[in-house]
């Protein structure tokens, strides 16, 4: 990541008095928080709490109903290459008609008008990105023929190829088997360490990610909050958040996981 440093480089997200409205319904309000750059942040909340709306706001797809959102000091949507986005249900459509490699290339050139051949430099970037996520081996296959874990790697490559400062992943572990989950978690840890990219993850099941996360944005009672993971992993808070009794269990081996309390 060789971008010029500015005073905004230390703050990834800044929300000031932000509220979100969908249709005429107020989804959440009083969003006031700052997320420092360089962390691995979870975005959690019950179904319908407005996680997707918050994501879309960061991506510049939904304007805030009030208040101000800043992403690395800029308006959302101004620096589209600065954010890499891995949606839920990646490649649920159209994956049969294109090679995995070409989708990653589109992450780099898909916004440019006109028909055009990729330059050698662009191809090199795609190669490097594929290698960074260990996807070189299956990059020439059709997207639809890849396994869930392989497809998720391609999705991450597509998001990374424009060298973003922040990676946003929506339920990246959903519908993956345990082994693939572990591999994607390891990949995220490595990308975070090697590229210094800020990572924002939406996840319902936090357990596979707990070892990585250092903080979380959580949507509680119609307001978004930001706190470090130590404060979030709390029986009372999580139970309130999900509306069901949840207990955080610490094992003698020093591991920690959440489970619904009987």
């Amino acid at each position: 990541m060789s971008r010029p440093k500015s005073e905004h480089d230390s703050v990834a997200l800044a929300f000031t008095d932000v509220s979100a409205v969908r249709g005429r319904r107020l989804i959440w309000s009083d969003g006031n928080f700052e997320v420092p750059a360089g962390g691995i942040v979870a975005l959690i909340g019950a179904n319908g709490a407005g996680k997707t709306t918050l994501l879309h706001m960061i991506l510049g797809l939904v304007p805030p109903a009030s208040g101000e959102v800043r992403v690395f000091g800029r308006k959302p949507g101004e620096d589209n290459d600065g954010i890499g986005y891995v949606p839920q249900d990646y490649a649920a459509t159209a994956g049969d008609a294109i090679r995995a490699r070409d989708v990653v290339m589109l992450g780099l050139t898909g916004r440019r008008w006109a028909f055009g051949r990729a330059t050698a430099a662009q191809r090199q970037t795609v190669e490097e990105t594929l290698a960074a996520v260990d996807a070189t081996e299956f990059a020439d296959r059709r997207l639809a023929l890849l396994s869930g874990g392989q497809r998720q790697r391609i999705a991450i490559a597509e998001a990374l190829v424009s060298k973003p400062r922040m990676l946003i992943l929506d339920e990246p572990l959903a519908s993956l088997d345990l082994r693939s989950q572990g591999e994607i978690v390891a990949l995220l840890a490595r990308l975070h360490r090697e590229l210094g990219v800020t990572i924002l993850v939406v996840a319902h099941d936090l357990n596979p990610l707990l070892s990585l996360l250092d903080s979380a944005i959580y949507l509680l009672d119609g307001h978004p909050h930001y706190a470090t993971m130590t404060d979030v992993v709390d029986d009372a808070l999580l139970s309130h958040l999900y509306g069901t009794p949840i207990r955080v269990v610490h094992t003698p081996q020093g591991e920690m996981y959440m489970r619904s309390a009987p």
Partner: protein
Amino acid sequence: MTTQLMAIGYQQDWWTILASPFMRNALIGGTVVALASGLMGYFIVVRRNAFAAHALAHMGLPGATGAVLLGIPPVLGLAVFCAGGALVIGALGKRASDRDVVTGTTLAFATGLGLFFNSLATKSSSTMTNVLFGNLLAISHQQLIGFSVLFLVLMLCIGLIYRPLLYSSINAPVAEAKGVPVRALSVVFMLLLALAVTMAVQAVGTLLLFALLVTPAATGIMLTPRPSLAMAISAAISVCSVWLGLGASAMFNVPPSFLVVTVACGIWLVVWLLDHRGRRVADVLDHPTRPGSVAPAEPAGALLQPKSVDSGGSRTPA
């Protein structure tokens, strides 16, 4: 032998028929329509707009028969109604597959309306048949010029929006997040589709249009995952279908639309059979175990320090 051939309508003077001016118009017109179909087909398949394309063609029917009532050229009515339908479908924004019922209902109503207009005008029954089944052999000089202009417009537009259109077709959520104007592109694409449908309807008709606009593209996609190559293959198959269809229609005095459609569908069927046998073989080679099973063919060893975080994956979910 000759009598047997006569029985299925063999015409010994077929070479003279092929050389005649109306056949020349049919060949040139059919070729231009085929090229346009090849260009659009890939996107139609990838965007899952096949049903919308089919519906658009039907929406053109009341346009064409209504135009006869008003005394204006049927093609104009066809084009206006197709474009109107395209704007509505495009503006609705969501994928056609999500609104099967709305599209299908509109399709049925439009076809009924076309029939009604046709019954009002006594002389338009030939228009009705031409719109429903196309009439390559009646393509006029004027139509040829129209086709060529439309094809140029299509090529120019697709060339101009190629990469964003491809991106939004393949992966709309990410393209949108990247700032690609996904909705605007969807409207533009539907308008271009209306142009292509207007052309294709004149060649093979509303009812058979699918075979020229969608089937060759689906064949191309089975043969290659490279978008531009798939488009080229799809155009080549369309052109082949038109040529073979016209040639055979000159030989056997059978409606060319039927033969064009038969060739396109035949090629699709052959490739589909080969592909489905071949793909299974390829899958077995590529995945010793099927995707989704416990041990996918992924290079787990290439990961750095997988064990330090791997334990997270095996915890009991909350």
